[in-house]
């Protein structure tokens, strides 16, 4: 290593790492970490499956009653199970000091927040969407409504991951922040529950779902654009 490479700084060390490259690297890191811990990866999914299948067992065996309850049950279970893994979104990195390394990596903190939240959605939200037909069958939702159910869950879980990122950023410095995290995120998720369950309900009864889906999409776009800023600021405050 010559003096030039040492003292010359970024210019002599080749092209700087681009934002997309950095994003991809962080997503890979997060996925790698998730798959090394399959128990933690599967917990929210198994929780989702068990909670939703408990309802048909606990309620009477009337299919019509089950169908009426299905959208609400599905959405509440999805909400709660995606909360399960939110606590560790930034906290595990903050605890072992790797968050400081990420923050000093030369990439903006927002790149890190976006990449980590995306990875979080991939291992929880996207996975929930994929197993939701199984739950739909258990709850007696007609197969014709599966597509709408999955689309609405997809939009909903992206929004949830972003709301969760704000909460996780705010509570990263707390020792036992997961209860507070739930208290922050759950009220914010109410519109999501109303319109998400509404869309699924209307799909089951065969009514038009456009209104509810548009609203879910609007919420999704709204959080995707503004939540990265909020989560980044929350995290920065807690890093100091």
């Amino acid at each position: 290593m010559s003096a030039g490479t040492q003292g010359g700084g970024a210019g002599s060390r080749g092209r700087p790492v681009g934002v997309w490259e950095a994003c991809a690297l962080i997503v890979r890191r997060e996925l790698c970490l998730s798959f090394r811990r399959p128990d933690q990866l599967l917990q929210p999914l198994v929780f989702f499956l068990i909670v939703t299948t408990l309802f048909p067992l606990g309620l009477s065996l009337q299919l019509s009653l089950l169908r009426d309850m299905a959208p609400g049950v599905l959405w509440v279970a999805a909400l709660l199970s995606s909360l399960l893994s939110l606590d560790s979104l930034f906290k595990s990195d903050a605890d072992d000091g790797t968050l400081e390394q990420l923050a000093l990596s030369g990439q903006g903190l927002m790149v890190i927040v976006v990449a980590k939240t995306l990875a979080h959605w991939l291992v929880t939200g996207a996975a929930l969407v994929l197993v939701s037909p199984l739950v739909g069958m258990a709850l007696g939702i007609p197969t014709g409504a599966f597509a709408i159910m999955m689309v609405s869950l997809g939009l909903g879980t992206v929004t949830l991951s972003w709301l969760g990122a704000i909460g996780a950023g705010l509570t990263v410095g707390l020792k036992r922040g997961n209860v507070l995290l739930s208290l922050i995120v759950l009220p914010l998720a109410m519109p999501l529950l109303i319109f998400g369950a509404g869309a699924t309900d209307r799909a089951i009864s065969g009514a038009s779902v456009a209104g509810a889906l548009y609203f879910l999409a609007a919420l999704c776009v709204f959080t995707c654009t503004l939540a990265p800023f909020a989560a980044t600021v929350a995290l920065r405050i807690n890093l100091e």
Partner: protein
Amino acid sequence: MKTATQGLCVEEVHVWCGDRHVLKGVSLDLDVGELLHVSGPNGAGKTTLLRVVSGLLRPEQGAVSWFGRSISSVRGEYQAQLAYASHEPALKGDLTALENLRFAVGLKRRVTAAELGSSLERTGVAACADLPARVLSAGQRRRVAMARVLAMRASLWLLDEPFTNLDAAGSDLMTALLLAHVHEGGCALVVAHHDLTLGCTMRRLELAA
């Protein structure tokens, strides 16, 4: 005090932690090719100073500049030339030593596995490259963290107690790495509560409790 435009300059930095006045007007300057040893008793604010210099902590008063420009205005550029090793090794237990390095260094610059391997070799932990960090001893983790600093090829090293958990050979290696870095035109700010004896000109800053 001379004005350091050739490196790092910290001017009259004050930091409060709640009611506690941790840093009381600390000033320092560090030119290229220089090494600064920051010492002081526990609680004197050594780590706080390092966090301020790294840009992780914004001081309530005072300024930190790099080549004459405030570090907050050249954040990305400054961070690209900075390698920070905190008191803890900052490794992910579930990732191997090599993966830890790849994900941390890869965000700073494009790096090949061979380069990372040679960094691990320089710090004497090449055999641990494919082991998960959680099975490594504290000293080995410290060496992996040092390999990360090497692989970043940064000009400014900020090291918090780098000699902790190292055996005699590890301490000698650490000293040699610091010397080589300084001779190659880099600069380093080393926080250590004990005396440092290196074979080069070393400036000292003693923080009072």
